[in-house]
């Protein structure tokens, strides 16, 4: 059975050209970029090229790119590094309620270190209101971090507006662009951001290679101290093959962005059209301001893991933000922050399309998915009576 992979937001396969570019740096070009002999200089040269390629993807200067090990590291680095560097000016941060765990949990760790964090709400589409950010600003505010695009519901946030507000108040502004960079146009100058996180495996590069854009002149404290790699801002021997792969993947993404976007948009539109024909299924996220390849839904009366297992039996790979599919056994905080009731958040299903997907993949999913929903609903105590069945039961227990 052929695989229909609709979980590109989790990870992507490497492009063959990317692997090919990486191979010499696993083998003969194994030198440490800090070494003075040819093996070292070749590795150093390869990193410089990759830095230019990554800078090119987001319209940054090469010197503004700091390589890291993951999107999570970049998010930790930006938030912690900027907050700590600016703590003489204040200890107040602003993030949204719909941030990725790597932003959310970094903010929480800073709270334990005496910082105060305001979590601005999102609307039913997962959208942040720039005015709400503005109103949250105090004299103590030093850093604002809002995601560029949600990896769960696809909503693209009004980053330009929020960055302008932050700029006017001389507050450092970071955006988590891990789900966006390489998949939609991202221009750091146009957006006006001070820091931005991106990750290679989100655009067909390798895992373990990521970067942070830091605008020239922005203050930051390192997460990792040691040598003078990455301008002394991120110590540790460079992941040369990974960085080379990230550079190549960034170059190809920049080159092919328009075509890739059109391809996944067409497929996800068809998928959405097909899936929304099922009763009591709701699209999540913003209807137009969204990642082109991400189609996300909640399906009433059934639970995400059951859907995933039955999809898998048909060779279809997808994701869910339901409690049962998460290791923490909690429903997606992003969906809850949008006001989706917990009962419905259990029915979360997310399809993220990529360049390898075909019309046939999508037609297969459109055909199979309604049957899977029906099969699980036939087993569900709520399908006939609606969610009322559980509420009546709760009420009677409270009464007793």
């Amino acid at each position, binding site marked *: 059975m052929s695989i229909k992979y609709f979980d590109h937001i989790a990870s992507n396969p490497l492009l063959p050209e990317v692997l090919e570019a990486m191979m010499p740096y696993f083998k003969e070009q194994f030198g440490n970029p800090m070494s003075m002999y040819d093996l070292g200089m070749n590795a150093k040269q390869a990193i410089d090229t990759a830095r230019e390629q990554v800078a090119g993807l987001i319209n940054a200067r090469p010197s503004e790119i700091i390589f890291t090990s993951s999107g999570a590291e970049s998010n930790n680095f930006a938030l912690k590094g900027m907050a700590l560097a600016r703590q003489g000016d204040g200890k107040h941060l602003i993030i949204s309620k719909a941030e990725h765990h790597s932003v959310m949990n970094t903010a929480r760790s800073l709270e334990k270190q005496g910082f105060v964090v305001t979590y601005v709400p999102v609307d039913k589409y997962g959208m942040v209101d720039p005015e709400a950010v503005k109103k949250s600003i105090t004299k103590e505010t030093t850093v604002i971090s809002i995601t560029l695009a949600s990896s769960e519901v696809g909503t693209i946030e009004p980053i330009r507006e929020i960055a302008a507000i932050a700029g006017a108040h001389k507050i450092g502004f970071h955006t988590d662009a891990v789900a966006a960079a390489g998949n939609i146009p991202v221009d750091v100058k146009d957006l006006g951001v001070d820091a931005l996180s991106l990750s290679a495996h989100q655009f067909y590069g390798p895992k373990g290679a990521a970067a942070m854009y830091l605008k020239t002149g922005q203050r930051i404290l390192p997460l990792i101290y040691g040598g003078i790699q990455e301008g002394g801002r991120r110590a540790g021997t460079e992941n040369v093959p990974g960085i080379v792969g990230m550079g190549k993947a960034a170059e190809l993404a920049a080159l092919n962005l328009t075509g890739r976007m059109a391809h996944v948009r067409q497929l996800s539109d068809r998928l959405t059209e097909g899936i929304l024909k099922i009763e009591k299924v709701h699209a999540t996220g913003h209807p137009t301001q969204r990642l082109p390849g991400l189609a996300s839904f909640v399906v009433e009366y059934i*639970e995400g893991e059951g859907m995933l297992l039955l999809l898998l039996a048909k060779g279809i790979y997808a994701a869910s933000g339901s409690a*049962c599919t998460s*290791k923490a056994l909690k429903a997606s905080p992003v969906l809850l922050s949008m006001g989706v009731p917990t009962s419905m958040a*259990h029915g979360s299903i997310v399809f993220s399309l990529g360049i390898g997907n075909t019309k046939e993949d999508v037609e297969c999913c459109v055909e199979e998915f309604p049957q899977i929903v029906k099969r699980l609903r036939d087993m569900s*105590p709520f399908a006939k009576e609606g969610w009322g*069945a559980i509420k009546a039961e709760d009420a009677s227990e409270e009464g007793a």
Partner: protein
Amino acid sequence: MYSAKLMDHFTNPRNVGEIVDADGVGMEGNPTCGDTMKLYIKVKDDVITDVKFQTFGCGAAIAVSSMITEMAKGKTLAEALSITKESVAEALDGLPPQKMHCSNLGADALRKAIEDYRSRQQAQG
């Protein structure tokens, strides 16, 4: 993640549905993860003659429901009450640790169904 036996009970669940004229109904839910199970029993001469279930939940919750219907059918009420969460999990060749608490609702739903049957009997008597 799941045993072959559990996957079999998830993909081919036994005794799914509703018994309209059930003698006892038990509903059990886990408020944290939302798994909810409704179990229907028919009882004759103190023996469970039929069992059906409806379940909202993950693969484990559905497989547990299917398994407990097979375990309970044909048993006396006393025998059925001795079925534990552990014995259901064992019959499925084990459950992942995080699913032991969240999705293992079968034994409790069965107990509630039997209690419901008994209270209906008392009300009649």
